[in-house]
């Protein structure tokens, strides 16, 4: 019991004192996670919309791959990314291994299927005639995509939440491809793992609280955006 109380006290001390190490880890987490979310949103929403709207051979297979990807273990993703980025690997010349970029790449691969899958599902549940109506209103192909995406913003924001959630909570891949290097690739999740293994529960709890607050604030903003369009 003492452990928990001490931990929480230590946590607040660290947070309110503005510990530079904690601050650094938090900022890197935000930067990495938000970049990964943004990239997978742009790619995932486009892909999901296109797959949701079109029929082509091999579509069913692609959809099954995406659905599998939605549940792929981050550790496996970390392994694959490591193999590719390793010094002697196919992309070794870019020396991305153990850099924040490597974490962004791994996190993108984890959240891309989730965002693509959600987008695809929400575009497909639209009345097919809505597409014709938008075209009939004089929309070009690109304008059609944009209007459809805007019209499905409620389920799409759920996709953003799920995507961001999978990214910020991820630890296995970040550890493998980032290496948890202090001041360089240490993010909140990997730092927590390290602190716990050292028995530094106070720091671990502090980082845990910060992580929860981050998740909460981001979701608060997203929820506000999602519920704004509800009928008055």
């Amino acid at each position, binding site marked *: 019991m003492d452990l928990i109380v001490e931990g929480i006290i230590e946590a607040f001390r660290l947070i309110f004192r503005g510990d530079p190490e904690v601050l650094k880890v938090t900022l890197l987490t935000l930067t990495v996670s938000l970049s990964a979310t943004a990239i997978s949103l742009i790619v995932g929403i486009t892909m999901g919309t296109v797959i949701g709207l079109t029929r082509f051979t091999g579509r069913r297979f692609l959809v099954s791959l995406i659905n599998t990807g939605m549940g792929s273990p981050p550790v496996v993703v970390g392994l694959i990314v490591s193999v590719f980025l390793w010094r002697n690997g196919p992309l070794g010349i870019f020396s991305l291994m153990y850099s924040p970029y490597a974490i962004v790449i791994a996190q993108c691969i984890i959240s891309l299927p989730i965002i693509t899958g959600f987008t695809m599902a929400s575009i497909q549940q639209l*009345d097919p005639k*809505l597409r*014709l109506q938008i*075209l*009939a*209103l*004089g929309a070009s192909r690109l304008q059609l995509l944009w209007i459809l995406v*805007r019209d499905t913003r409620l389920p799409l924001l759920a996709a953003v939440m799920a995507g961001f959630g999978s990214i910020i909570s991820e630890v296995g891949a970040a550890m493998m491809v980032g290496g948890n290097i202090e001041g360089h690739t240490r993010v909140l999740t990997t730092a927590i793992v390290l602190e716990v293994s050292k028995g530094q529960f106070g720091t671990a709890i502090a980082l845990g609280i910060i992580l929860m607050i981050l998740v909460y604030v981001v979701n608060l903003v997203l929820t506000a955006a999602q519920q704004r369009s509800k009928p008055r």
Partner: protein
Amino acid sequence: MKQAPVMDSSCALEASGLTVVLGGQQVLEIASLQVRPSEVLAVIGPNGSGKTTLLLSLALLLRPATGTVAYRGIPIVEQDHILKQRRRLAVVFQEPLLLNSSVWDNVTLGLKLRGMPKEDIRQRVQSWLERFGVGDLARRQARTLSGGEAKRVSLARAFVLQPEVLFLDEPFAALDSPTRQALLEDFANVLRETRTTAVIVTHDRNEALALGSRVAVLMNGSIRQIGSPAEVFSSPVDEEVARFVGMENLLEGTIASCEGQMAVIDIKGTSIQAVSDCNMGERVLVGMRPEDITVALTRLSSSARNCLHGTVKGTVASGPLCRVEIDCGFTLVALVTTRSATEMGLEKGTQVYAAFKAVSLHVIKH
């Protein structure tokens, strides 16, 4: 290379040699169809006859397998040309299909896509919303509207575009009767005032009669008959069209004699007189509308040339009207008001006389 067909530039819209294949099956075959400026063409036909497919291909929303669609004489073929032309058209579907935003955003969208200046959009949209009686709903979320309101918004959204041709696919089908009647009148007035060229697809004959300046009957993917509403509804070209336009009584007979325009037709041993230009001995179908038959308990001394004696086989009341089936050697269906059916005491077995004029019969060569 195949020579492009010569298109008539005095037509607002013209289709020629149009075929559409869906799922490996040909669902539409239109040899030629012309829509003249300011006319309202009503396309009627049973479910599955290809009405919506025709409308989508004319509105450039469905690519035909063969054939061309031309606007003001210019065939629309290339992709960027299609988009440009689409921006001169408007389509209203059966469902309102409003986007998940405010009424205002919905109605302004088409004009925004056309890059119209904001101030012009504001004025035009406001006036059209008011014209359809939904001016005070502008700030409402479109998905919270009632069916009738949503339909009015979708009509306003089409009319703000001031389309060269307006397409409507069963626009009033999903509305309840009073809502529909009020909207139908408003819509008919707007069409008349704006002299908008329109193609309206409907399975409802009354709608076609109320709105159409011409009527085309579509069956199994091809146009069976096209003409003025009077022509189509009183002189259908064949049995199927006759049934569809409400000629419930269709009787097979033979021309027994003819004198000028007046013919005597033998139907299962009963002679009736009709106006026809058929020749003696020809086999014909005689069509008559139930509402053109007068039912009485005694022989009528009216101007009607035909008065047959028969026995009532059954009656079915539906609202203010009552369908009476009469056996006069063959079965005739007549429509009388429910009130007069009650007054005459019509029921199974009642002996009655059915009278109808020679001119109210339509004779189709069989």
